[in-house]
């Protein structure tokens, strides 16, 4: 469950990152000096790579929490009372 949630979070984070990046790129292109040197180019492989990295990060980041959740002892609940 934790791993699934982390994957979902990673996917949403990846999409949000792409939207933020494209926005920032458009903003940067408005600036005359920087915009003249660097023109952002968005290709499908790059966008897919970004989502893949976000998914991998999500799953790697969730490994320990998921392992912890799977090995919770019922006694632990008493400590949270």
């Amino acid at each position, binding site marked *: 469950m934790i791993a699934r949630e982390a994957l979902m979070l990673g996917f949403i984070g990846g999409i949000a990152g792409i939207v933020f990046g494209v926005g920032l790129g458009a903003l940067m292109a408005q600036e005359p000096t920087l915009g*003249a040197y660097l023109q952002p180019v968005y290709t499908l492989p790059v966008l897919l790579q970004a989502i893949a990295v976000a998914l991998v*990060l999500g799953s*790697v980041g*969730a490994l320990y*929490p998921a392992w912890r959740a*799977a090995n*919770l002892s019922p006694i632990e*609940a008493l400590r949270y009372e």
Partner: protein
Amino acid sequence: MSFRIVGIYETGQSVEEMGAVILLKDAQEIFKKPRQVTYYQIKTTRPEMTEPVIKEIERRFPKLVAARSANSMDNQAASTLLRAMGWFIGLLAVIGGGLGMMNTMLMSVYERTKSACCARWAGGGGASWG
């Protein structure tokens, strides 16, 4: 040293359009590099001669770097620096993102410890929480 603008021209290359053309002698004096040239642009009359010309220049002058204009930006120190900065920022983002994700999920586990344990008591499988 003062200059008089004698004309404006456009090349379509943003890097060139942001610069100015002055005499080589003046440039050497301003940058204090007498008898030195850092960059030559050579135009071949026949496109198929470009590669042989590059090879010949590199054979005759091993210390020079010859490249097609499309690839010349790759050899610039600025683009190397930008590339290195990109990798560094990317690495930082990956480490930060990984740690952030781990923290978020750990907090999620801590907050739901009670319900997870209750579910375990009631017979819910441990692996389903992982």
